[in-house]
């Protein structure tokens, strides 16, 4: 028999040490090799290459690329879009999770399905539907141009598609958690005389804060990183309606590798922060 591993208590190790479940050593090594090789080639390499390309011509070129007016404008627009989108979808996520997990009503499962709908729509189609609504030939197009309101090829259009694309993120993280939590604690607080808001802020919010934070972070990452839907409605006006991902595209197509990857490095950094926080939350939940 194998000697018990020093990290006993870990379920995975226990499975590994049960004779009947043990795969031959060569097979284990081969499979681990395949898995690690795949992850290194397909996931680590791209992530590392973003940094390598961004700093290929040194720190100075990197910061110079980032301080170019078009890059700064793109970064500012990206932040504005995220600042408008994330709070809206966060409030929605909390309200939807509260209604769905704390009450019984007919059509609940249909509502849950509809909330997930934007996930199954191609980014390009997400952009297209807003063109059909607000474009010059769209439903509201003539009315909007008569009143001098610009939605397409302007910031409002970009915000609208981003809200659509990131719609389910917060609700999706909260609904399963609040379902599992049950509402005994909230009922106790309410029956002891606490008001609705007080109960929410003192009981519910502390219980869901990590999942809420993760949902907000995912929503934010996608809001800052959305490409397909935004590129359909943005019109690609440099320094005006280019978000950071669109700026990556424009710089790349201009053969400005440092510029493209400098902007990309900000977005990649955001992705890494999201992944680290996710691991942290999973570790905390354990």
């Amino acid at each position: 028999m194998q000697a018990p591993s020093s990290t006993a208590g870990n379920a995975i190790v226990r499975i590994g040490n049960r004779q009947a479940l043990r795969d031959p050593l060569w097979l284990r090594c081969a499979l681990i090799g395949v898995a690690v090789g795949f992850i290194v080639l397909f996931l680590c390499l791209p992530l590392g290459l973003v940094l390598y390309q961004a700093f290929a011509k040194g720190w100075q070129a990197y910061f110079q690329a980032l301080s170019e007016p078009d890059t700064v404008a793109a970064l500012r627009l990206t932040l504005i879009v995220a600042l408008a989108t994330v709070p809206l979808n966060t409030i929605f996520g909390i309200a939807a999770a509260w209604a769905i997990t704390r009450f019984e009503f007919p059509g609940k499962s249909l509502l849950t399905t509809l909330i997930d709908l934007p996930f199954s729509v191609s980014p390009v189609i997400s952009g297209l539907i807003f063109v059909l609504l607000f474009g010059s030939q769209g439903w509201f197009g003539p009315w909007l141009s008569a009143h001098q309101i610009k939605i397409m090829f302007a910031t409002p259009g970009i915000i609208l598609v981003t809200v659509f694309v990131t719609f389910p993120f917060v609700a999706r993280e909260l609904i399963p958690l609040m379902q599992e939590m049950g509402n005994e604690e909230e009922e106790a607080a309410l029956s002891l005389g606490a008001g609705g808001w007080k109960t929410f802020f003192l009981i519910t919010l502390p219980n869901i804060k990590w999942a809420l934070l993760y949902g907000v972070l995912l929503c934010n990452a996608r809001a800052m990183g959305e490409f397909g839907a935004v590129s359909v409605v943005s019109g690609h006006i440099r320094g005006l309606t280019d978000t950071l991902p669109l700026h990556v595209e424009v710089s790349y197509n201009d053969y400005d590798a440092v510029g493209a990857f400098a902007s990309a490095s900000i977005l990649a950094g955001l992705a890494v922060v999201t992944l680290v926080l996710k691991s942290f939350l999973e570790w905390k939940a354990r």
Partner: protein
Amino acid sequence: MTQSSIMPGFRPALAFTLGYLTLIVLIPLSSLLFTSLQLDWNEYLDIMIDRRVLAAFRISFLTSLAASVIAGLFGFVIAWVMVRYPFAGKRVLDALIDLPFALPTAVAGVVLATIYQPGGIVGKWLIDNFGLQVAYTPLGIVVALIFIGIPFVVRTIEPVLQEFDTTMEEAAACLGASRLQVFAKIILPNLFPAVLTGVSLAFARGIGEYGSVIFIAGNLPYVSEIAPLLIVIKLEQYQYAGATSIAFSMLIVSFLLLLGLNLLQRRLRKRSGQI
């Protein structure tokens, strides 16, 4: 309805949820539906049987299918290794699986194109050793879609594998089954629905994927031009009917795909007696 009357805020929460959902999701999506219904049937057919449109759909389908099957194979191995084998650095690698979810598609697109272009790190190696060009061919699309699809497969299989009842494997082993027999007769049939779900999710996502594909694809009409790109091209030429027809067909396809998957899963579950 058994509902605790003590919980407050039902009406405002539900009203806000429904109002916001209608405004942001339902009305915009219905614009596609109604615009499609206004199209003339013959016009729609003319657009859809155009050679370039058919070619784009064929490319989107075949590359997504190939990528999701490959992602399914590797995803299965990765999920297996992550759940069953202890090894150093596993936590970090496991966290990295979600990278394609978190990395903006445009970033993935430019970085994959840089790696696989003829002068890139992997691209040069492949051309020198195998004469295989990946970037700017349908193969490049497959690579991008494998990248996008892998977390769908791994994250669908992992929880099922974690819950897997290992006593079944032990029983089979006690009755004299070899490890290979246990895998073929016990493990694979039980994990198959999860594998199928993961592969289908990757496939559905792959058909609609845009940002990570267009940089590496080269976008040659009839060769490496995907259906979503054709929507963008039609929109840029103000051909709204064309863009809407393609989008509508894509939505129908993904709807049928999800429906088929649901039915298949129900049948598989019934057969294995879990209902």
